[in-house]
């Protein structure tokens, strides 16, 4: 402080710095003491993320398996060969490990102890394999799958019997556009970070409505306080809060759910700043036309809900009906979530056209809502004077 205390013009800078410091400290205390801020900013996103991660990524390792009974009425070379092949198929688990009588197998099917019973041919000549399933489960996934697998199995057996080798086979591979692979945990983690920062901006500006309603803005205008510095300190506070959100959610994602992050810091900083500022503008715009906090919260809730489900936070946009996808394509959260994925999971550098296209969409949203908000505030300042 003493170093900054210079005479003349610099005295003004000193006062402005002190004003910023005091206003920032006040904002910090207000945020820390506001229980709502803690709940919606920290607790809610964490809980939401944990719930989604537990529900949707918990059983992704589990493979499809079904229990069947095998009946081998009169063992012969053909049936023996089939039996050994069936036992080796990973999707089938043969109950009790060996063939049983047909009566026993049918009883198990009736009691739903097994999903199906496979009755092997009685001789090399009798070429039919019988599949017994419970009528109640006939259309069930397990019965369909067993019949499909068995069908393919019989076809191959036929080909083998005819002495032909299969010519085509199917290989399954998944690819992504990035250098690193994205699994659901990473997808959800980055989506949740985007959502909580977006909500911080959209809901956070409720303070403005409250301050205006209580006459606090008017009160500050009666002092020589610099309102620009006041706005700046508010903004810095919000950005800091968002950084806390990123770190907290990332830590939980990585440490508890094993998410893999490959961060490009420069891209992350740019995407984060643009995104956070544009969602704050959106909140500022809401506050400019909301007379009460209830009205503000209503608008913010509708927007946040729409974006939550239409912007690919929880599920990729491609999984949604095609007619909804154009809506997603204009929402800022779509690009914010994408940008965070690019910078936190794919390690994308700044020289990417699609990244800048997304940033441009966010900038447009931010700029337009900020200007609209400012115009509404100015116009209302006259009416609000009374």
């Amino acid at each position, binding site marked *: 402080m003493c170093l900054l205390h210079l005479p003349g013009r610099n005295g003004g800078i000193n006062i402005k710095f002190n004003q910023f410091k005091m206003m920032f400290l006040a904002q910090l205390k207000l945020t820390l003491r506001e229980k709502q801020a803690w709940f919606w900013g920290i607790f809610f996103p964490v809980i939401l993320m944990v719930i989604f991660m537990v529900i949707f990524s918990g059983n992704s390792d589990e493979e499809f398996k079904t229990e069947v009974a095998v009946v081998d009425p009169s063992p012969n070379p053909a049936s023996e060969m089939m039996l050994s092949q069936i036992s080796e198929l990973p999707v089938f688990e043969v109950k009790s490990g060996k063939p049983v009588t047909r009566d026993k197998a049918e009883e198990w099917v009736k009691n739903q102890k097994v999903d199906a019973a496979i009755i092997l041919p009685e001789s090399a000549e009798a070429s039919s394999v019988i599949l017994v399933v419970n009528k109640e489960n006939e259309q069930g996934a397990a019965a369909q799958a067993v019949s499909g697998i068995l069908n393919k199995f019989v076809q191959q057996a036929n080909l083998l019997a005819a002495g032909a080798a299969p010519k085509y086979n199917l290989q399954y591979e998944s690819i992504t556009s990035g250098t690193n692979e994205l699994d659901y945990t990473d997808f959800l983690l980055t989506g949740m970070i985007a959502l909580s920062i977006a909500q911080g901006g959209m809901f956070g500006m409720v303070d403005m409505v409250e301050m205006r309603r209580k006459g*606090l803005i008017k009160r500050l205008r009666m002092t020589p306080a610099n309102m620009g510095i006041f706005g700046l300190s508010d903004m810095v506070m919000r950005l800091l809060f968002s950084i806390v959100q990123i770190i907290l959610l990332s830590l939980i994602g990585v440490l508890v759910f094993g998410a893999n992050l490959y961060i490009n810091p420069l891209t992350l900083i740019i995407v984060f700043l643009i995104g956070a500022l544009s969602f704050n503008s959106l909140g500022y715009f809401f506050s400019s036309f909301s007379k009460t906090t209830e009205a503000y919260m209503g608008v913010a809730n509708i927007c946040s809900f729409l974006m939550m489900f239409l912007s690919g936070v929880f599920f990729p946009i491609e999984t949604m009906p095609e007619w909804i996808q154009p809506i997603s394509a204009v929402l800022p959260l779509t690009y914010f979530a994408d940008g965070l994925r690019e910078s936190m999971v794919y390690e994308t550098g700044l020289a990417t056209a699609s990244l800048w296209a997304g940033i441009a969409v966010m900038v447009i949203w931010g700029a337009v809502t900020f200007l609209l908000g400012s115009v509404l505030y100015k116009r209302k300042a006259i009416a609000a004077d009374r």
Partner: protein
Amino acid sequence: MTVLEVRNLQKSFGSIKAVQDISFSVHAGEVFTIIGPNGAGKTTTLEMIEGLVSPDNGVIHFGELDWNKHAVSIKKKIGVQPQSSAMFDLLTPEENLNLFASFYDHARPAEEILEIVNLTDHRKNHVKKLSGGQRQRLAIGLALISDPEIIFLDEPTTGLDPQARRNIWDIILHLKELGKTTILTTHYMEEAEKLSDRVCIVDQGNIITLDTPSALIEKLTNEREIRLSFLDGEKAAEDADGFSKELPSVSKTEREGAALKIWASKPEETLLDLFKFTKEKSYGVEQVSIREMSLEDVFIAFTGKEWRD
């Protein structure tokens, strides 16, 4: 010395003329009170002087300074306690004062202000836990933080209990001792009478009258209301009514049954004459009273309206 001069202020909101034509000047060190019923234009007048609302017409001068050219200098000179005691509810009184202090180049220490507004014991509590009176005192404290020359207090005691109101009166009287100029609005007559050096009565956006409280009452003292009621019923009252109408100092009488009201500019003389008359006629007088005048009467006399708190 005049510290504030206001000439021909006018302000309309749509079709409502909130302030029609208000002019006055305030001297250094005085408590200047604007009094009037709700909707009289007090707050609008004050907000124009405080620079929050720009007047449709009229001039506001703080000595050499005016809002168009010297807004920041004026803001440093004045301290305002608005009607809505707006402050940061989740901060403590001390934190609120320190924050407001940072807006000015020269501010008084928060401890000093806490002392003046008697909140030292509560300086560490969040504002939202304070009582109405404590909040109001803090609002006055915030107006004092820059050590202003002129202090505006907009209905500082409205909605407070009598004790809390008295506490605020003490603060205002203390500010006067410190040589500050205070511009106060209220709709409590008692308060205006007790605190003010000069009172300005406002109704429907116009100044009705402006003077010291005693001079205002004085203006009416040559005419007081005498009330009599007669033991002998209507006939006696009727006779006395007829008699007093002939007296030179009586301007008006009103009779209701056996009760008689007489407005007289020399009430003692009128009473003497009346008693002579009743003794002559041997009418028994049950009750006699002369009503003391207050600002309330001044208000009623000037506006012709009943006063409501």
